[in-house]
């Protein structure tokens, strides 16, 4: 009798768990954040390493041509913006999450939960906005049963993943100072870490950590030194430093062993007219490592000292271990917007490789720290300076990918030119004080050998213009990318040969993800306002 009762209870519990899984009500086990993504895609990057790499192999180079469309979902924010705020772009730039069979996707002011097997909408959350740039939302984060997302009007919102109801919201920046929110938060232990955006006025960047349960602020780290620090000497004055920009609008990575949190910082302010901020302007356009429990700086490496071209170094600092001169090292690699590829020792930030991944014309070599030395002649000029890359950069925000199988770093690169001018001739420019104009560019998908920084293979995209699509590599010997002609393409990551493609109604606007449910591997991409999901379905 006792055995029968236990059996029945076990069945009931099992059915409840199954039901929860099917309805997407099962919370995210934090242990999943420390694993490679298989049955889930639980973070913006898939895992803490930022590789945008999947160990799944059911879709592979030998069968990828059998992929078919599984379902399509169109994100419809409704009639205009949510509330009285800014216009909402319906373009999906964020990388969706997939947790326990439910996909969570975002655009500014909106979050949707969608059945990851069928594309059926489960709930839609809409935020009444008070303004801010609605240029894009990079995605959400989930811890247990709560989803966290930033809004353009400077709020961090916590939603119940069961029904999309708000649990709390906290102001993370000052809309009145022209900050805005766009970043995908990162969960590290009991920290929800967020970055901020905004470069219309001269305001300082920072990252800050919030309590997952209450939303209370735990710590904040500004992207400038404290007055009196040795690094403060890279600014002409405390006032210039405290208004020196360095927004934190890119994705972050985390090494649990070292307990270090990595991200890149954005452009210094004023953006173009840099006459009033002579010096290297730390910690702008730098790769930095923080202790995620305290927000204390561990080390920094500056990708673009004293930049005047808007080349944010916010691209993903990808983590992997590799051999350098026969020695196993903990590495960090970034293909930066300024056209340079860097490999660092992520334990201490020491430089190992610095090289151009596209030809540029703004640097005079590298210094002893491996940092490019800017050529003053290629700073913006009143009558113009022809500069490569352009403001869009050698790369931009779309994520690159690193495959531990091939040892190659993949990036959708642009080779571009434009003319940079400064307009503000005062001794103390503010805001932008200039801009670049015009330009010509060409795009190519590159595979970079991290040991040397040399391009092993390059696929030139047809026509002119850079490409804005993220990348995904998999253990199935595949690399997925999008072109400017609305194609989703599978490459052989070893040699760049094309294996498969599918045409969509718009060009890929985010980064592919993949996951396996019920024995079926799905491939998911966003194109404009639409999610396309591919799989090999038996019937």
């Amino acid at each position: 009798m006792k055995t029968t009762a236990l059996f029945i209870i076990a069945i009931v519990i099992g059915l409840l768990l199954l039901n929860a899984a099917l309805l997407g009500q099962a919370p995210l086990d934090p242990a999943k954040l420390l694993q490679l993504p298989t049955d889930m895609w639980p973070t913006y990057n898939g895992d803490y390493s930022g590789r945008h790499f999947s160990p799944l192999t059911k879709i592979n180079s030998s069968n990828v041509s059998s992929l078919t469309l599984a379902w399509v979902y169109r994100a419809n924010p409704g009639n205009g913006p949510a509330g009285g705020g800014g216009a909402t772009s319906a373009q999906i730039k964020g990388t969706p999450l997939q947790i326990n069979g439910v996909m969570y996707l975002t655009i500014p002011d909106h979050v949707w939960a969608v059945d990851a097997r069928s594309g059926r909408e489960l709930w839609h959350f809409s935020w009444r906005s008070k303004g801010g740039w609605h240029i894009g939302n990079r995605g959400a984060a989930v811890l247990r049963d709560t989803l966290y997302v930033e809004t353009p009007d400077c709020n961090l919102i916590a939603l119940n993943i069961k029904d999309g109801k708000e649990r709390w919201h906290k102001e993370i920046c000052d809309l009145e100072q022209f900050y805005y929110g766009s970043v995908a938060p990162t969960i590290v232990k009991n920290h929800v870490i967020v970055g901020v955006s905004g470069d219309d006025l001269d305001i300082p960047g920072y990252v800050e950590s919030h309590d997952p349960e209450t939303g209370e602020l735990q710590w904040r780290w500004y992207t400038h030194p404290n007055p009196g620090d040795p690094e403060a000497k890279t600014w002409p004055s405390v006032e210039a430093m405290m208004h020196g920009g360095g927004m934190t609008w890119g994705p972050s990575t985390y090494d649990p062993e070292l307990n270090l949190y990595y991200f890149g910082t954005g452009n210094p302010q004023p953006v173009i007219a840099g006459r009033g901020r002579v010096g290297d302007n730390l910690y702008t356009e730098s790769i930095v490592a923080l202790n995620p429990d305290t927000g204390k700086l561990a080390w920094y490496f500056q990708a673009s000292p004293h930049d005047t071209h808007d080349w944010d170094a916010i691209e993903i600092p990808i983590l992997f271990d590799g051999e350098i001169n026969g020695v196993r090292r903990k590495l960090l690699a970034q293909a930066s917007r300024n056209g340079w590829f860097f490999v660092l020792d992520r334990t201490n930030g020491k430089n190992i490789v610095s090289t151009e991944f596209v030809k540029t014309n703004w640097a005079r070599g590298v210094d002893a720290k491996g940092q490019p030395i800017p050529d003053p002649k290629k700073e913006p000029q009143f009558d113009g300076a022809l500069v490569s890359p352009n403001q869009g950069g050698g790369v931009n925000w779309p994520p690159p990918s690193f495959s531990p199988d091939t040892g190659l770093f993949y990036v959708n690169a642009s080779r571009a030119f434009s003319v940079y001018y400064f307009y503000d001739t005062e001794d103390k420019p503010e805001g932008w004080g200039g801009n670049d104009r015009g330009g010509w560019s060409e795009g190519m998908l590159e595979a970079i050998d991290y040991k040397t920084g040399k391009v092993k293979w390059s696929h030139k995209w047809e026509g002119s213009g850079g490409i804005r699509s993220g990348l995904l590599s998999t253990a199935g010997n595949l690399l997925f990318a999008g072109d400017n002609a609305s194609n989703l393409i599978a490459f052989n990551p070893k040699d760049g040969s094309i294996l498969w493609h599918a045409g969509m109604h718009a060009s890929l606007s985010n980064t592919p993800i993949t996951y396996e449910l019920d024995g079926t591997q799905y491939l998911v991409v966003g194109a404009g306002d639409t999610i396309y999901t591919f799989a090999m379905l038996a019937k």
Partner: protein
Amino acid sequence: MRYLLAISIGITAVSAYLAGQAGPSQRQAIDNAAATRGRAVYAQYCINCHGSNVKGGENGPDLIRSVVVLRDRLGADIGPAMKKLDGHPKDLTQAQVLDLSHFLHQRIEATSSNRNTNQPPNVLTGNVDAGKTYFNGAGKCSSCHSPTGDLAGIGTRLTPINLQQRFLFPTVARGGKTTEVTVTPSGGKAITGTLVRIDDFNVSLRDASGEYQTFRRGTNVKVDVRDPLAAHHELLDHYTDTDMHNIVRYLESLK
């Protein structure tokens, strides 16, 4: 009351206009006449400490970067702030404070949008003769262009900054040219036409008869695209900034 209503309508109107821009949607609508009066108030009471450009000085902070000013609406914050702060005027009328608020917000709006300019910079800093030498020599421009042919009078048709942009970054459409493509299918005859679209998988052209044709690309299909601007793109790696300025000056002289 009607005054407040008008202000409210003004704020609402500008909010709609500013939707999607930086900063809060509830912005202060700048009354330019009031801002002009506010400039006079500023000159009388504020300029000595906060500077002629509102960016601060030795005795006063930058007011464009002031959080108090950024949060102010119609003088509601800066009025009380001035009353509290030492060395600030205490006897400004409500109208003067309002005018001052419009002036300061006008400066903020101008700064936040100064990546754009209605006054292009002067790019005529080069040397005409050096530009002509480059045109006929190292640049090989004269192999395709002529100052008495296609470029005759170009200096009267384009502004200097547009001259600079157009010679550096010409476009097929703007130049009245087309990109020609020849597709040779396996075992078939070559077909030439104007390129309409190309990617890694298909190439589309419009042939001489006006017919639109698309070919699936493959290892057995030869595709030859002839970009008429290829020489311009290659030159981008070779121009010095001095070359660029000299060419602009020379082109501008072709009246």
